[in-house]
């Protein structure tokens, strides 16, 4: 533990986790309310990215529809809330169950395919839910739905920004803990082995499909958790939560941070939101008005990352690519 702090990577990791742990205190001290909401979103997106990393980074399964779990978790909370069920004790387990079931279902269908077919079928299932969300006139259709935040009476008030942040942070810690155990467990080794050679794993006697399906389902459940939190963050759900661009963003975050590494998705989310928040003002410095067009820089940046920075941030910090 102490030895890990001696490397730049260990030191930076410790620093980041420390800052995240006390972020509400910092933003209060410096009176930067807005930064707390950015921080909350970073933490929620990190949970989703860690969950995607379980199948994408460790399993080599390029799922291009992971944002669907934002939508499923979010809408489960939103629809219950619209019907007057505001207790989190009911909303959250139901939302998690729906996300888990949906993940199991589309996993069972998608994992029969490989390569581009898998990329596209996961995207297609996400689009399917996206259009269903847009067609739910009773729940706002394309415009989305304002909801009241989940209630955990007496325990925690989600309307209080710092409390909500800490809840998200605790959820992130739990997700990271699980992912860290998972990666080095028997199960994780099967998933990682199947990434490098699934035929080999079958020939060793592993029913690879079952393990992948389990991983896909677990990943979907954690994705649903992120969706629940995202819905509560804005007190709002809409189909836009699960547009395919969001799925693309999640892939970007995982690759940017470092695939198949525990903390890579967290680094990736921080970098992603830091770029999103800082590129516009930076470009505005160059010339007034340019900030609006920040994606004209961000897009080519992604191309460069794809071409030249495969290991992501985590490998820049000195971690050997696995």
């Amino acid at each position, binding site marked *: 533990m102490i030895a890990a702090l001696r490397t730049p990577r260990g030191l930076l990791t410790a620093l980041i986790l420390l800052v995240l742990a006390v972020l509400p205190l910092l933003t209060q001290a410096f009176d930067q309310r807005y930064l707390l909401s950015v921080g909350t979103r970073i933490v929620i997106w990190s949970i989703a990215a860690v969950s995607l990393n379980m199948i994408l980074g460790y399993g080599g399964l390029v799922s291009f529809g992971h944002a669907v779990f934002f939508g499923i978790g979010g809408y489960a909370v939103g629809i219950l809330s619209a019907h007057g069920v505001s207790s989190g004790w009911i909303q959250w387990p139901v939302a998690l169950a729906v996300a888990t079931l949906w993940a199991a279902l589309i996993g069972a269908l998608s994992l029969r395919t490989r390569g581009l077919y898998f990329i596209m079928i996961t995207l297609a299932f996400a689009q399917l839910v996206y259009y269903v969300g847009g067609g739910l006139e009773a729940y706002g259709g394309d415009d989305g739905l304002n909801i009241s935040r989940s209630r955990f009476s007496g325990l925690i008030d989600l309307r209080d920004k710092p409390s909500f942040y800490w809840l998200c942070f605790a959820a992130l810690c739990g997700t990271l803990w699980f992912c860290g155990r998972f990666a080095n467990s028997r199960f994780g*080794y099967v998933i990682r082995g199947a990434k490098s050679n699934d035929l080999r794993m079958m020939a060793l006697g592993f029913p690879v499909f079952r393990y992948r399906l389990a991983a896909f389902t677990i990943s979907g459940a954690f994705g649903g958790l992120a969706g629940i939190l995202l819905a509560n963050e804005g007190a709002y759900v809409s189909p836009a939560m699960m547009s395919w661009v969001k799925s693309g963003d999640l892939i970007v975050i995982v690759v940017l941070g470092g695939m198949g590494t525990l903390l890579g998705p967290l680094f990736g989310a921080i970098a992603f939101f830091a770029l999103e928040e800082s590129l516009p003002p930076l470009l505005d410095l160059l010339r007034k008005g340019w900030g609006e067009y920040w994606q004209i820089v961000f897009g080519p940046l992604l191309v460069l990352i794809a071409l030249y920075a495969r290991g992501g941030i985590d490998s820049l910090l000195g971690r050997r690519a696995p």
Partner: protein
Amino acid sequence: MTVPLLSTDRLVKRYGGLLATDNVSIDVASGEIHALIGPNGAGKTTLVGQLTGNVAPDSGTIRFAGQDITRLPTHRRVHLGLARSFQITSVLGEFTALENVALAVQAHAGHSFRFLRDVRGDESLRGPARHCLEEVGLDARAGMPASALSHGEQRQLEIAMALAGDPSLLLLDEPMAGMGVEESQRMIAFLRALKGRRAMLLIEHDMDAVFQLADRITVLVYGRAIASGTPAEIRADEAVRRAYLGDDGMVA
């Protein structure tokens, strides 16, 4: 005659108009080495695929250890004791040699739906794995990433992984492919030492190795088994000479 360990009965596989496997019936008895030879394109790979469960035959049956396994998925066959090594080396490069074998041990240690316990300190997997590495003479390399091993060592690792499940039959798809003379000799010695304890179906181009090791040889040409018998019988077989010898005279 006792029931053979593995037997195929009139196995047929078509690809379009091409008969890749044409009514092939072969068998392997417990403890024997049965070699399968034939020129490129003879259908060896397709036959291996059907035995391992990667290719579904159009007709015919495969029996193994007293069971019809024709429709069983790959992993079920492995658990019955049918292990294989690959023609193209396919060790898991990102894991160490020891981890590769430990995974093979794990495949036979019940289900792997265990999410929390760290596998890296799990002696119930690593112990037997170390033993397998010793058996093939790779124990000194246990901690190396498999991708960093030499080609010959990777072939040995393949065998170690196949042995980890204590199979009754080893399906060896060109175990000597790409090996130098010295490495080949070591592999031959190793396989000979295994003989009797495990049955082997050996697919191999190196005729020296085949004639040194095999109890019986089957010759596959254009998807058909044109001859089957002891090495001496195969050497003397007219049909084999015609089909094969013209190539490069390797049955000399």
